[in-house]
């Protein structure tokens, strides 16, 4: 069970507002993160305007945007640590009150601080490397300036883990020894060389159960495994750097900000009224709209976690108000966030085409019916639920429909802005920046939902802590993936399959299971890059059509998003709706089963994919 709450670590910490140097530090962090967020919004937009209308541009707009995302993500994670919002297993809170919980908190903080210190020093090494090769972001700005965010953020997080571990000085002192131990291991890597990694992994899992944040479990496993094979933990941090500066990642903070700006105001009321006006007459109307809207949003943004962030705040109240059970609504929103990956111009489809060397146009056509099938399956579940609970049904009137449309006209414009800008040639990031700016202007100046600077700052700071909490996990997960690739784990798996599996159908079944597990551990872009080149030759061996394979891959990834432990939608939903992951996973089980049936149909009925192509 995973909880977005400040688990065991936060329970014993001092509440209250910090003062003096700590307040100054908090202000500095907030300002840096806010400025980075503004930069991420302004740079891509400035680039469009200058490039389109003046045939110039901002030199290095894209690299600056990605490096600001790195800074925002890492400093955002430090802010999340400050506010006790780092994702941790909720098992820490199940410890008996009093002494056991106190000790558990100290042990968890000790191990967390140890890992985090190794990560911080890995960041210092990365900074050195970039300094030595004089790597530039652009126009003479050195990359090491952005790299500073690694040691600073991880350093602050380590200190905060220690600070929050115990109210007693002695407890904090014990936890602080974790920082010393981490520094010691970093400077004496030979200590771990050629040892078995398993006892260490066991310690990490134990600490995670006692309440250590999740990023420290994944990041810790990565650095320990690197150290055991004689490699520097900096290898993991290099993976994190690559992930945090990847081209489309800035879309995540931008869409998140847009989502929070909408959520802070009354946009959900207006959209709710609109849904009711148009679909209120049908059984399960709002649930069907939820599925369609989520699919639509995901095909635009490429990452389904973003959909939950942007739409969760709107659709959740709408569903509840129409009488849907909270549990059903949670499950529906979490699951529907992964729909849409099979429709054009979904980013994963394009990336799959690039990596597998198959025509992207064929993938777009091939994905259409399977996409509709999955969407239809969830919508049907919505109708069933609507009938079962007798969800509120309303008479349709033209008058109300028009009035509701008019009142929600600005919110309705948002998808138009996103699609319109994409069709007009904007990149995903530029379109996300436009969406964020559009929402900002509408909510602050047109609808005037955000009354003043304070409201704006609240939306901003909430989205920053959330983005930090998500990006730090994505970052260390890539470090772990880097280790797996180095150890040739995926390649060995492929060899084994070729040697041991004979039937095409057994292969496909195994592939389904494998891809769901992979999808639960890796983000979709990494898994495409890592896994696709491995399975393509095996699939060819079993005479699986390459386009069909692509659609099977993406359809399985949709499920992967919903599969513990790292299934992105689960932890994003956990954050967004403030519920433990286990609760979310349970709520989503019926949707998971129906989507699984969809995936199996897509796998074993090749016609669904290839029918339109022939």
């Amino acid at each position, binding site marked *: 069970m995973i909880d977005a709450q400040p688990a065991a670590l936060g329970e014993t910490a001092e509440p209250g507002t910090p003062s003096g140097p700590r307040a100054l530090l908090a202000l500095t962090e907030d300002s840096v993160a806010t400025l980075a967020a503004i930069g991420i919004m302004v740079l891509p937009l400035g680039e469009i305007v200058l490039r389109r209308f003046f045939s110039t*541009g901002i030199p290095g707009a894209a690299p600056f945007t990605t490096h600001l995302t790195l800074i925002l993500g890492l400093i955002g994670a430090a802010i999340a640590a400050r506010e006790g919002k780092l994702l941790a297993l909720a098992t820490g809170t199940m410890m008996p009150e009093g002494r056991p919980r106190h000790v558990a908190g100290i042990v968890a903080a000790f191990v967390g601080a140890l890992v985090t210190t190794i990560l911080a020093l890995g960041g210092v090494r990365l900074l050195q*490397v970039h300094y030595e090769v004089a790597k530039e972001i652009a*126009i003479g700005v050195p990359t090491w300036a952005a790299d500073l965010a690694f040691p600073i953020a991880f350093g602050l997080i380590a200190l905060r883990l220690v600070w929050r571990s115990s109210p007693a000085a002695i407890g904090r002192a014990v936890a602080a020894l974790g920082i010393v131990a981490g520094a010691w291991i970093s400077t004496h890597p030979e200590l771990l060389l050629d040892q078995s990694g398993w006892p260490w992994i066991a310690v990490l899992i134990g600490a995670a159960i006692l309440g250590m944040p999740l990023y420290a479990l994944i990041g810790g496993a990565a650095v320990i495994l690197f150290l055991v094979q004689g490699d520097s933990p900096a290898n993991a941090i290099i993976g994190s750097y*690559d992930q945090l500066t990847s*081209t489309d990642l800035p879309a995540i903070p931008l869409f998140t900000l847009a989502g929070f700006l909408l959520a802070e105001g009354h946009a959900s009321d207006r959209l709710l009224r609109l849904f009711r006006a148009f679909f209120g007459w049908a059984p399960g109307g709002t649930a069907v709209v939820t599925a369609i809207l989520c699919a639509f949003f995901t095909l635009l943004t490429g990452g389904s976690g973003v959909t939950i962030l942007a739409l969760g705040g709107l659709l959740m109240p709408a569903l509840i108000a129409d009488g849907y059970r909270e549990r059903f609504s949670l499950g529906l929103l979490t699951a529907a966030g992964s729909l849409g990956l099979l429709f054009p*111009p979904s980013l994963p489809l394009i990336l799959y*085409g690039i990596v597998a060397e198959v025509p992207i146009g064929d993938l777009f056509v091939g994905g259409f019916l399977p996409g509709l099938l999955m969407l239809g399956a969830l919508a049907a579940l919505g109708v069933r639920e609507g009938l079962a609970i007798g969800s509120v049904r309303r008479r349709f009137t033209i008058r109300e429909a028009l009035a509701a449309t008019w009142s929600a006209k600005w919110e309705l414009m948002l998808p138009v802005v996103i699609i319109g800008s994409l069709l*007009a*040639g904007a*990149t995903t990031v530029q379109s996300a920046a436009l969406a964020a700016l559009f929402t900002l202007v509408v909510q602050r100046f047109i609808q005037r939902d955000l009354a003043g600077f304070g409201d704006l700052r609240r939306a901003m700071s909430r989205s920053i802590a959330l983005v930090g909490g998500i990006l730090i996990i994505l970052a260390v997960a890539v470090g772990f993936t880097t280790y797996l690739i180095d150890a040739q784990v995926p390649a060995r798996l492929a060899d084994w399959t070729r040697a041991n599996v004979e039937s095409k159908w057994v292969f496909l079944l195994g592939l389904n299971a494998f891809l769901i597990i992979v999808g639960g551990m890796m983000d979709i872009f990494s898994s495409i890059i890592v896994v696709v080149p491995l399975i393509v030759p095996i699939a060819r061996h079993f005479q699986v059509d390459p386009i069909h394979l692509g659609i099977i891959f993406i359809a399985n990834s949709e499920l992967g998003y919903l599969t513990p432990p790292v299934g992105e939608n689960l932890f994003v939903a956990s954050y967004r709706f403030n519920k433990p992951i286990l609760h979310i996973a349970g709520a989503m089980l019926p949707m998971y089963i129906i989507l699984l049936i969809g995936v199996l149909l897509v796998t074993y009925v090749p016609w669904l994919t290839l029918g339109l192509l022939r």
Partner: protein
Amino acid sequence: MPNRILLRIVVALAVVTSATVAAQAPLNIRLATLAPESSPWTSALRSMGAAWTKATASRVRLTVYAGTIPSESSAIARMAVDGLQAATLTAGGLAEIDESFNVFGIPFFFQSDAEVAFVQEKMAPMIAQRLQAKKFHFINWANAGWVQLFSKNPIRSIGDLKRAKLYTGEGSPKTVQWYTSNGFHVVPLSLGEIPKQLKLPTGAIDAAPSPPVFALTLQFFRDASYMLDIRVAPLTSATIMTDSAWNRISPDDRTKMIEAAQTMEKQIQAQAPALDAKSINEMKAAGLQVITLDASALGAFQAAAESQLATQRGNMVPPDVFDAAVRARTAFRTSAGR
């Protein structure tokens, strides 16, 4: 003091044993490349690895990580922390280590495979020396055909080209600046944007320099259905190894490894034209129109390109490297003209 003597013997034995063990422990070279697993480059690298193992009696082994690195910058950083010991990188990636590699990316500088091979051979010692200063060892070249010009409207002159909205990578503002200051209209984008932007009627670009195999794979030739057969630049790659790994190999083994590497270089060099031709023929069958310039149009194009050449010197390419490349090219053209 017999104890002390005993201790010395033990220590001496330990040192000898560990030294022997160190000498016998095989050196595992981890090499990364952006080339995908199923590409001819990867299989050539693997056979080079097999040749290394055989020639050095398993003292050196090569593990190839194909298509698993997110970027060439990443491979360079991984080499700096000894997470990788070697990499096969394109000229663009190598230029991050040393700008001399930019010479292979100068638009319209080279005209033929023979010319590229000649200049590469002449420049190899200079480049190897520059790499040495950055603690890398040069292993071999691995060329991968030519970058051609794909466009939505036919391009027949440098004037046409200057009117086009040209794709360029977003990683190098210097390149953008160079194009802009020479009157080209470039739009920096990520690679993945090319197909989408070419498909849209109002897309940000309407032309993209690309290797044919890439235009075929990404299918953007269906929208940018004209290919100017102009050979914008060779797609040059090279394999490099970290000095710390190279220095662990005995001189004898190094000689054998370089021999195997040169065999691979020749094999790849021989394959590349056929691979380009195969991709182009496949696209032609699907509607690609290849524009070939007649001698005078080609001359005009090249003369116009040549007049902008000097702006690369010192700006994109270190002056001494630039001059050496021009000298080598002139030598080739003179001898070929004779």
